[in-house]
């Protein structure tokens, strides 16, 4: 099977055919961007120091090592819980023009709206697989907002076939993890009732 590869800058039409559950890979630039960077842009109205129009962000706080020649080496970089950025993401997509958001777990209804209105997708990189991800980073080209410390710095990574990325929110309003959660909640009802009948230890 040939790999489906997205390349930055990403155009709206690149995303039109993507559906939740599809597996893709990314080549180009991937910028780490998490809690405080979102807060600075949306609440504190500060301009992001990296232009990510048509680009991709990664909800991630990596381990980075400074090498003897002064360059940064990506040691370990896996996704962080995307839901923490839900509060800001719709506005973030609107203001930055970002096209691909990579993270872990699902995001909520506002991000889904943002992805539909401004054409973007959210994708899951398998959580905890941080060395696998680091080996797909060719180079850290820049590091911005280093005052935020190692996890929150905006690390500008050049990546090659970065993935697997599982589309969890597409441009059509579908949300994979929310759909799954609805299934889990349905499935759990009879299971919970069955257990309850067997744990009446207080008599």
């Amino acid at each position, binding site marked *: 099977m040939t790999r489906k590869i997205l390349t930055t800058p990403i155009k709206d039409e690149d995303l039109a055919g993507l559906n939740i559950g599809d597996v893709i890979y990314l080549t180009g630039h991937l910028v780490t961007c998490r809690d405080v960077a979102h807060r600075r842009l949306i609440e504190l109205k500060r301009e992001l120091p990296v232009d990510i129009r048509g680009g991709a962000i990664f909800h991630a706080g990596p*381990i980075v090592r400074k090498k003897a020649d002064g360059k940064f080496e990506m040691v370990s970089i896996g996704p962080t819980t995307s839901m923490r950025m839900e509060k800001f993401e719709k506005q973030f997509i609107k203001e930055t023009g970002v096209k691909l958001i990579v993270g872990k777990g699902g995001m909520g209804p506002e991000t889904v709206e943002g992805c539909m209105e401004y054409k973007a997708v959210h994708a899951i990189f398998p959580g905890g697989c941080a060395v696998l991800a680091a080996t797909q980073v060719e180079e850290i080209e820049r590091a911005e907002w280093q005052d935020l410390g190692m996890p929150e710095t905006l690390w500008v990574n050049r990546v090659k076939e970065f993935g697997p990325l599982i589309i969890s929110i597409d441009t059509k309003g579908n949300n994979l993890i929310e759909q799954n959660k609805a299934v889990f909640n349905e499935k759990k009802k009879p299971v919970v009732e069955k257990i309850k009948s067997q744990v009446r230890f207080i008599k």
Partner: protein
Amino acid sequence: MNKDEAILSLTDTMAKFTVYIGKRLPNDVKDKLAELRTMETNPLAKAVYTSMAENQDAADKLDRPSCQDTGVIQYFISAGARFPLLGELEEVLRNATLEATRMGPLRHNAVETFDEKNTGTNTGSRIPWLDWEIVPDDDGATIDVYMAGGGCTLPGSAKVLMPGEGYEGVTDFVFDVITSRGVNACPPLLVGVGVSTSVETAARLSKRAILREVGSHNANPNAALMEKLLEEGLNEVGIGPQGLTGASSVMGVNIEASARHPSTIGVAVSTGCWAHRRGKIRFKADLSYEIISHKGAVL
């Protein structure tokens, strides 16, 4: 070895062990993940298990922390009252964390609250977090190291139920936590449940529960039955790796309990992600040691 040398030796061992457990999973977790992988049939879930296995191989070969979130460092100490370095242990573990942060390298994960500044050292007020149990009439020390990552810490919840809610209420609580917030915490999870008298006692026991081996059972037959029922029930829900649905949801459910006030049932849930990075090491009084959690480990 004089006392200063002994302090340096213990610090060095604990720093190296802390680094080690961030790169390689303990035997019980590794075995359970291999078992769950072979049972999986959903193609997306299988792909994730493949990535997980590739990642652990790469971490081992490249000698790097397998997950970038090396957590807040927590040490659970069970020390003999006559352990020679009992009074020095707090400083030893603080220095071990500093050294491990440099050696690992570990991600900087200690943010001073209210000042809201990352200390950059993984040490800060009351961090590394120490949990103490003193064993009378013993001169050794057993230390569990745990990397409390953000993702697996976020689902943590505790509340006090009224006795009328009973263990049925405990069941509801565990399922609600795992099927809502647990989905984002890198399943398959190791679920720790504390059943106790108040929020803080239940919370501490729920954390102790995930330090217990995968596949171990509570000594009380009713508690062991409940572990089994919760594990099977959660697996029936089929959360799968990363919440992508699959044949299982959890690596296991461990319950730790205490007696309770007749008017209360304190219940808490702590979760360990699939990359459940913990280690157990046992020191004798002469500081020779045995690594319990990782067979054949060389520091």
